[in-house]
């Protein structure tokens, strides 16, 4: 490699010019598949009200074997996006067993600044129509590449869930979308790291293809209509109760 730098640079320039012109010409529309990895022991380790002894113990006994992988999808075009779970099995060999699919989608319209979420919390379905209030992001200075896109990083602190989150957003995908509730940056968020690996979502496949019905939401949905702040209050209440019982707050609820 060291001896062939000129060839590399030429190849690089050709590649770069292809890539940049290609991206600019390309319509912003497609689907991102995220690999969502949850590490149960690290999730436990982040719950500060549980005794350190218990957290250390779960890390010691489960640290290397508590990862749970699934796939999720983010469909997007220049103004809208929809995030949902994928039916694809992320861990080969797990086929042949299916859990019930709870209602779960998060749709954003960035032109109108509105969102429509269908979420299942503690066994109940909630439908949330509200305006988008992005989290308060801090822009950091690091750069890296995720799934072929150069990304910048930003971070946020969720005081309710006690989560420190670092995300990487693509400079060349100018839409304020991202996986789950992580939205509101100048580019699509391609990687999320919550509490140092407790939850990691990484874009592992990006298909820039025209969408058909992927952005549609189910027509008739039964569920309780709430605002985002009412929904957040429900989560707040549950976390408070689990804290009082000194049990992990994410039992029965998404991390």
């Amino acid at each position, binding site marked *: 490699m060291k001896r062939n730098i000129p060839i590399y640079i030429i190849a690089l320039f050709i590649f*770069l010019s292809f890539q940049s012109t290609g991206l600019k010409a390309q319509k912003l529309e497609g689907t991102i598949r995220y690999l969502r990895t949850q590490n149960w022991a690290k999730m436990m380790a982040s719950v500060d009200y549980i005794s350190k002894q218990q957290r250390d113990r779960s890390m010691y006994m489960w640290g290397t074997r508590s990862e749970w992988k699934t796939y999720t999808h983010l469909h997007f075009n220049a103004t809208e996006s929809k995030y949902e779970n994928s039916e694809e099995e992320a861990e*080969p060999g797990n086929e042949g067993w299916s859990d019930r699919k709870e209602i779960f989608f998060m749709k954003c319209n960035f032109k109108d600044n509105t969102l429509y979420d269908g979420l299942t919390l503690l066994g109940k379905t909630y439908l949330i129509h509200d305006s988008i209030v992005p989290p308060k992001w801090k822009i950091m200075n690091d750069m890296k590449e995720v799934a072929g896109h150069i990304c910048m990083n930003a971070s946020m602190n969720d005081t309710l869930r006690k989560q420190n989150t670092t995300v990487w957003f693509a*400079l060349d995908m100018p839409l304020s979308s991202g996986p789950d509730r992580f939205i509101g*940056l100048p580019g699509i968020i391609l990687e999320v790291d919550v509490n140092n690996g407790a939850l990691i979502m990484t874009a592992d496949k990006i298909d820039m293809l025209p969408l058909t019905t992927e952005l549609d939401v189910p027509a008739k949905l039964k569920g309780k209509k709430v605002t985002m702040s009412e929904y957040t209050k429900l989560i707040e209440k549950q976390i408070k109760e689990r804290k009082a019982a000194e*049990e992990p707050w994410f039992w*029965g609820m998404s991390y």
Partner: protein
Amino acid sequence: MKLKILLPLILLSFLSCFAQAQNPTRVSIKGTLQDTLHQAIPFATVMLLNNSDSSLVNFLSSTDKGEFAFNNVKNSTYLLKVQHMSYLPVQMLLQPSSAAINNIPVVTMKPISQMLMEVVIRAAKAPLRIKGDTVEYDASTFKVPPGSTVEDLLRRLPGIDVDADGNISTQGKDVTRMYVDGKTFFGDDPKSVTKNVGAEAISKVQVYNEKSEQSKLTGVDDGSQEKTMNLELKAEFKKGSFGKVTIAGGTENRWAGRANYNRFNDKSQLSFIGYGNNINQTGVNWEDYGEFKGNNAFNNFDNGDFGFNRNGGRMFYFSSDDSPVSNYDGKGLTENYGAGTNFNFDNKKTKFNASYFYNQTQLDFQQKKYQKTSLVNESAFDQYDTLINSDFRSSHSVATRFEQEFDSSNKLIVKANFRFATNQNHEITSQQFSDTLLKPYNIRTLNNFTDLASYKITSAAIYRHLFKKKGRAFAYSVGYNSNFNDGTENYNSINKFFDATTPTEQIRQMINTNKNVNELKSSALYTEPLSKRVFLEFFYNYSQLTNKSNRQAYPFETEVRIDSLSAYYDQVTMYNRVGSVLRYSYNGLNASVGIAEQQLKLTGLYSLDKGLPWDNQKVTKTFPNFTPNVNVNYEFKNNMRLDLGYSNDISAPDFNDLQPIKNTSNPSYQIIGNPDLIPENAHNVEFGVHYWNPSSFSSIGVNLNYGITMNPIVYSQSSHFDSNKGMITTSTPENMDQGTNMGSWLWSSIPIIKTKLTIDFNGGADMSNRPTRINDTLNDIKSQNYNLGSNLNYTATSKLILSVGGSGGFSKIRYNKSEKNNQDYFNYVIRSSVKWQFIDRMFFESNFNYSVFKNESFGFNQSIPLWNASVRRIMGKKNKFETRLAVFDIFDKNVNINQYALLNIVGTTKTNTLARYFMLSVTYNMKGFENKIQKNRFM
């Protein structure tokens, strides 16, 4: 005049004040982006950040002319940040503007150097970060073989050159300074670090420019900079350890000691544990054992016996093979010692575990037993036993497990366990037989010694392959188990009669036993996805079990074999099964239907002794069967789950049941095998519903099962009074027509006041109906067991937790041919406990159980109040010490009671056990104790 001069001045100052205050509250910020050749940069991300905390205020993309404008933003101090994938990021401070439109100077962006870009593009995953002029590599994403040095790692980093001599350069400049975690390491030569430090310790490699030593010393920046490299060490690489030591001494010569120590890093765990005591802790507790086994405590479900149950899914089980966990059954006094070590290695691809454990227990108990054997025609006889038992057990166990994931589609698991165990037992029993009117028949005194040694090997290998097509999989397993037992048994019995005319019977025998069981087995499983939701599985199982056992009986101190009690067996059980399962799995519904054809082949040869000619009476039996299987699991909305299953199990008779030879360890109760037995054929239906409310944390579950067993193997009982031998019972296994059993189980947990007061319930009812031949008459024995329990848990404050509850059991035994002998017995216990942190670092813990055991027809009624209490105090700077004063059984009333029923026998035993003692203990915990009451123990 003065005023004339002053007035304009005042006015002027007022105006200037006004001008300052006139800064608009909202402004527009406009600017243009250019590269070093003054070309416009379109499509760059321009962000406006809050200067104080870098939080994002607004952002936009530059136009094709390289222009940007933030309109109507608050007039304040901002950081302007511009990013473009082809340029180095630019950041500048914007002061509040005095004009409504803040036109900022042209922003010039430098293209990212080709070298950097190459690095960015070439590196596939996250290896590079640019922080100002610092380039940072994430070392963990560059794989180097184990044992590599930093130099080997650096050779793999794009953009870094290492020449043959180990000199490092980057971006055309030599790296002249090297730090480890920001500090100088062994002098100035970077090579001293790169050639000596292991690559696995490094988490990040950072390259940046640093002012030369010269300018650092003089404080004058002469502009010359040196390329500097910093190696950041992995946080988890720093080793950790934890451990505890406890010593305790008490009244009644009670003592206990316990110690454990664990060392670990991110890949391996090493632990030691040891204990000794005479307070009936026959092993370690679950909590200590879990930490001892570390990340190997819970194994992936490595069952290689593929079949109707879904294999390869994610299941965990606590690895309990020959575990040294305390399993004291409440009888007698014990003295226990044990020690072990465990090693785990895990780098995600390769998992290895090896452990060794030694434990020994000396158990001594004295027991009184009363039992009634009901016969036909309302007759029965009673038996009063007193028993003195001394038992010594020891075992050495070695367990190993190796798991290798070759790639995402190939995985191999190999397990091998070895165990050597000994057991010496001495039991003196006095059995008094009498009729129900307490008229005694005879007293038999047994004095038996047994001395056994055994070796056991269990091993298995499981290989799994996943095909490219999702859901298509193949698994293969092979296992070998071997068990070798060698023992000597000495039987002495004296049988005295109350009828003076009958002579005293005396038996003295010595029996040598020798048993060698080998099992070879293998299974294969193939899964084919027919669609995304439908799967078809095929499985095949094979096993061959060889049992060679020799039993030679001699009268005491002679060498003339007692032929009627001696035999050598060579038995082979061949098992073949081939089956298929059709599985449907979608959206919470998982259903399967399967069928298998199985064949059991039993071959048994026997002779008087090893090496002697085989007897003509040989067993050769083949049992072919079709076995169907159905399983349905459905998850409703709202966390409700339903399970429904049907299975058909064929179990071959145990070889011991087939051997037509007497076991004379207890001449009053002899078991004789039956060579004509055929397998039991059981049909079982199971049903279960579980509900969990994640919001209230209440849960409820019901399980029901029903089974019909065709040809159940039941021990026929024949009891009679022999004028020369006293009361004798002979028991022979026989196939009956049909037996049924039914069971139900319900539990529930409901928070009455969330997080404060919770009530738990559980209850169950079991019924079984076994036809049993008693003294040649067919008898229907129905047994019914009911139990009910409830517990109320109250967390008053974080410093006080109370609980009160109780449970009870009731058993009914009905004999249709001897109704007078019907039995009812019950027991219940009331429990209460308190945990109280009454001052900082001081705790009081106590529990009180009141147990009652009753059998009215026996006139048996025993109650046991058991009260324990302890006070503990955490001490030391970091709460590392704990002293505890405990009293066990304050009332000194503890005794072990057991009520039981089996076929036509109902009985009660009363055994001595540990009663009142006081104990003072001191524990040192390296990690320190928690200065609070732990509310729950989920981990």
